[in-house]
Every structure is written in C-alpha cells, then in structure tokens.
C-alpha cells in the first residue's frame, strides 16, 4: 500500500517534470527539469528490481550526459523560446493528433493483462549477473558499443579540431 503510493508519486513526478521540459520557455529550465525527471525514473527502476540500472541512470545518464548538456547550454547564449502555444496552428494540431493516437489506441486496444509479473530472486538486476551477461552472452554487442564510443570521440575531435594556423 505504501509502496504503491510512493511508486505512483514518483511516476507522477516523472510525467510532470517531462511536461515541464516541453512547456517551459527557458532552455536551461527545460534541461534542469529533465534532470529531475531522470531522478524520478531512476526511482521507478528500483521498483522494478533494476537496481544496477537505477544507479547507472543517475551516474551516467544524469551525471555525465545531462551535465555535458548543461555545460554546452551555458556556452551557447540561447534566447528564450516563444513557448509551445505560439507555434503554428497546423503544427499544434498535428502534435495533438499524434498525442491522441499514441495514447488512445494502445490503452484501449492493448490487453495489459498479457504482461505478467514474474517474481525474481535477489540477484535479479544486480551487477554480477548483468556483467556476466555482457561478457559472456552479449560480448559482440559489448565490443561494438566500445567501437561506437571510439567513433563518437573521433567525430567530436574532428568537428572541433583547430589547427595552429587557423584563426578562432
């Protein structure tokens, strides 16, 4: 009972902060609302017994990616957006139609009772089992992810490299 209350509180807060990302005009406020939303989603992961992922979400996703975002936001001098309600009407109508379709059809036509709930042991979602899977069963994916990271580093260096002869 208490667990359900806390779960729905975190879920509501995640949705509220995500709405704030879309509706706030200042890009810095949007980024900070997204950070708060990630914290709430990390709490939802704990309820799903994904303890390793909840810590990884805070450390990597919030602590590295969003901090990088905030650094670049501070570097770029962004003006305030004019807000979501002042966009063109056709765009708003399109977005509203998409929103309605994406929420109405799955909720009405998908049988949510088909998703079971399996009870899991204490090691589910822990670091040992996931690490085991990464280097034994999914080792090719793991290695390709490291290649992807290397490619990302190369791309960023190529984009921002300045020779000594170039002016700023």
């Amino acid at each position, binding site marked *: 009972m208490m667990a359900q209350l806390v779960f729905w509180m975190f879920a509501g807060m995640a949705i509220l902060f995500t709405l704030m990302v879309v509706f706030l005009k200042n890009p810095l406020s949007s980024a900070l609302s997204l950070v708060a939303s990630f914290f709430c989603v990390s709490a939802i992961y704990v309820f799903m017994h994904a303890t390793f992922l909840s810590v990884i979400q805070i450390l990597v996703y919030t602590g590295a990616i969003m901090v990088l975002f905030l650094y670049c936001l501070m570097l770029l001098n962004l003006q305030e957006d004019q807000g979501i309600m002042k966009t063109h009407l056709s765009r708003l109508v399109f977005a509203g139609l998409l929103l309605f379709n994406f929420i109405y059809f799955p909720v009405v036509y998908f049988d949510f009772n088909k*998703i079971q709930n399996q009870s899991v042991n204490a090691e589910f979602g822990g670091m040992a089992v996931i690490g085991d899977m990464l280097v034994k069963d999914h080792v090719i994916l793991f290695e390709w992810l490291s290649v992807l990271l290397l490619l990302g580093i190369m791309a960023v260096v190529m984009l921002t490299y300045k020779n000594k002869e170039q002016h700023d």
Partner: protein
Amino acid sequence: MIEPSNVILISLVLFSIGMVGMITRKDAITLFLCIEIMLNAANVAFVGFSKSMGQLEGHVAVIAVIVVAATEAAVALSLAIKIQKEFGTLNVMDISKLRN
C-alpha cells in the same frame, strides 16, 4: 502490487510527451532534449518488460541505449556549437533559410 503494465503505461506517456515536444519546439538544444526524453521512455519500457519476463536481456539493451545516447549527445552538442558559430542562431527554422 506494482505491475510492469503500469511501467509500460508510464513509458508510453513519457514517449508521447517527448514526441509532441520534438514536433513543436524550435530550439536545436530543446529538440535534442526531447530526443533524450524519448530514449529514456524506451529505457523504461525495456526495464518493465524485462521484469515481466524475468530475464535480464532488457537490462543489457538499456545499457546499449545509454551508450548510444551518450555518443549522440556528444556529437550533437559539438554540432550545435559549430552551428551557433556559423549561423549565429540555433532556431531550426532560420537555419534552413540562411544561405552563405
């Protein structure tokens, strides 16, 4: 009881909010924030289904998605800084009109 179907519903709502934000916002950085919302919603769906099936492949997929999001964030932000230097603005509407 907290069912995984609730988590799938939350993932659906988060994804559609991110999608609506991506359609209506005009700032390049805010567009990219909405992409991150959608990636996060996919992560939530992976975690929910992983609990529902009792298997851990979903968690491996979440790690892959987080790595891809990190790479994409780095590249997109360096591109945004270069665009700001080149065009003077980050409004995606104006970038398409400005020619050299």
